[in-house]
């Protein structure tokens, strides 16, 4: 099967006058047609930077990118000018945590969606408006026709998120990148948006990469999961394998420290310490300083990629087998 998205050995460095940050340090990933990949990690793990690289959204002057990104036959890192503009929004589109930043505050929702359609499909204004209306209905915004002429600030948080999804999907992209789209939402609204995304993904047959720090959210939407730490993917597999047979000590620790179900009063098995400072690339395993199982070899050299099960791998010298102890 040829992958829709293929990322090979991606490295991203940010340079400022004072320091360099090694945000992504060798990420490989692939995404098939109609598949949802959850990219799970804490702040600074490089999950959002990886996602933004796919759309070339990182500031060019301060960013050094190495590696290869291929999306639906496009060599993304080589795209320039008109080709890049045609790629963004048509082949790959993105939704964000904060919809106010995705919309221009001085144009109506309807005009902004119509504009995207007019640019990418050489449609006229009437066709653009018609598509905008269709999209607002698709994402189930009540009284969609009236909402076409609403400005972003006139909508509630959940409605704005729906409108942003409508904008992102208006040109039927093949890949949707979702960067924590439900993090700022209330619980009862979050689940509505997750279900909507799942439904539209099936309907349009899109590939989706969904970045989140919330394991519960990742499990609700993903077919496969990849866990990032210090700019690398440390474990990947099907959502089921990754939650039931977690092998790498970092995702195991993350699960043990995530409060869920009936754990009342029990002491949390927290991961000690804090994530590393990424001004240098760690020689060995970046998690080793916080890992209870670490041995001298873990610090000295990068750990091997170990096959745990079918399509389930962990980058660890001492992967754990057996189910995760913390159960709710």
């Amino acid at each position, binding site marked *: 099967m040829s992958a829709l998205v293929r990322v090979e050995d991606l490295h991203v460095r940010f340079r400022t006058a004072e320091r360099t940050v090694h945000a992504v340090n060798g990420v490989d990933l692939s995404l098939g047609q109609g598949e949802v990949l959850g990219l799970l990690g*804490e702040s600074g793990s490089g999950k959002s930077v990886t996602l933004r690289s796919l759309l070339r959204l990182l500031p060019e002057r301060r960013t050094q990118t190495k590696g290869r990104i291929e999306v639906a036959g496009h060599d993304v890192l080589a795209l320039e000018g008109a080709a890049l503009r045609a790629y963004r929004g048509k082949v790959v589109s993105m939704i964000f945590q904060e919809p106010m930043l995705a919309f221009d505050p001085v144009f109506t929702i309807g005009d902004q969606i119509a504009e995207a359609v007019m640019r990418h499909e050489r449609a006229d204004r009437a066709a653009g408006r018609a598509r905008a209306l269709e999209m607002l209905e698709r994402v189930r915004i009540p009284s969609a026709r009236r909402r076409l002429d609403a400005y972003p600030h006139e909508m509630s948080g959940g409605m704005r998120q729906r409108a942003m999804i409508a904008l992102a999907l208006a040109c039927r992209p093949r890949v949707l990148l979702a960067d924590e789209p439900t993090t700022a939402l*209330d619980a*009862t*609204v979050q689940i509505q948006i997750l279900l909507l995304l799942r439904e539209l993904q099936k309907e349009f047959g899109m590939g989706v990469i969904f970045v989140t720090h919330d394991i519960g959210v990742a*499990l609700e939407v*993903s077919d496969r999961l990849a866990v990032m730490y210090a700019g690398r993917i440390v474990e990947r597999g099907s959502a089921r394998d990754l939650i039931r047979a977690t092998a790498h000590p970092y995702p195991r620790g993350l699960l043990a420290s995530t*409060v869920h179900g009936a754990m009342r009063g029990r002491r949390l098995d927290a991961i000690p310490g804090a994530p590393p400072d990424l001004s240098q690339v760690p020689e060995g395993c970046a998690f080793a300083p916080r890992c209870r199982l670490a041995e001298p070899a873990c610090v000295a050299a990068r750990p091997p990629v170990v096959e745990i099960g079918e399509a389930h791998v962990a980058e660890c010298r001492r992967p754990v087998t057996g189910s995760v102890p913390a159960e709710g």
Partner: protein
Amino acid sequence: MSVPAPDADLGGPAQPLLAVRGLFRHFPIRGGLFNRTTATVQAVDGIDFDVVKGETLGIVGESGCGKSTTARLLVRLLDPDRGELVYDGLPVGTQDGLSLREMRRHVQMVFQDSFASLNPRLTVADSIAFGPRVHGVPAAEATARARDLLARVGLAPDAFGRRYPHELSGGQRQRVNIARALALRPRLVILDEAVSALDKSVEAQVLNLLQDLKAEFGLTYVFISHDLNVVRYISDRVLVMYLGRIVEIGPVDAIYGAPRHPYTRALLSAMPSMDPDRRTLEAPIAGDPPNPINPPPGCRFHTRCPFAADVCRTRMPELVAAPVAHGHLAACHMADPASGHPQAETAA
């Protein structure tokens, strides 16, 4: 003449540490010609509850439900429009009660934003010692107390005491804020989304720390959060708010195991499933929480409630005790056999 607060327990274990009686706080929105009040945010609209000595009371709700306004009213960072606070039997801020200054020695708060709640120009040791010094503790003793507290929250005093807030990570800063809150030796600590901004691995460390400190210092917590898992983990009792009102309050197992208010049930079933084989199939309720500006009449949840009847649109339900579970109250006409709601529980 206000009386000084007793450091020791006053009313015995049965007396609530803090009693909240009929608290209201509305915020006017001004605009138009002559800056008239054009609307009112009914942030907190008549709430009553007790904080029992030694417990952790969790407060949950979505944005705009009034949980943070409640927190600020409890430490009197905001003045209520109406209602009173009674701290261990003493009315707060009245002539013959407890002065605000004394009350704040006993009731401290930790905020979500660990950076904004520390003075950027003070070292963390000085920030922690500041409160005690203002309250008359000699400088040397205050400094010693700050060092001791830094050690208690897991930050080596020699390595961290002289640092400034910007030199610390979010988790470390939140530890400093907890130490600062404890520096006055309070009995009640209000934690307003205190772990919400932290990554999961750090959040777990801070939750463990909070449990340890509670046992060590005999503290009582009011723990406010939108994270239902964390509230379930840490709380003894839970209070659920919706648009400025309490919809349900009770022991944590009763709230999570047998919720009585339709809103509580919806909130709980909106939590993501942790099982990829049993994903959520349907959203429990549609739409966004309504705006607390001019909330709906009657029961405030009736616009989103699948069980809404005529009585819900006209009359505001009061908190009613459950027939069996002790201390489990819900403000729903269905929980009140006398309400006239067609699906009301029959008196058991």
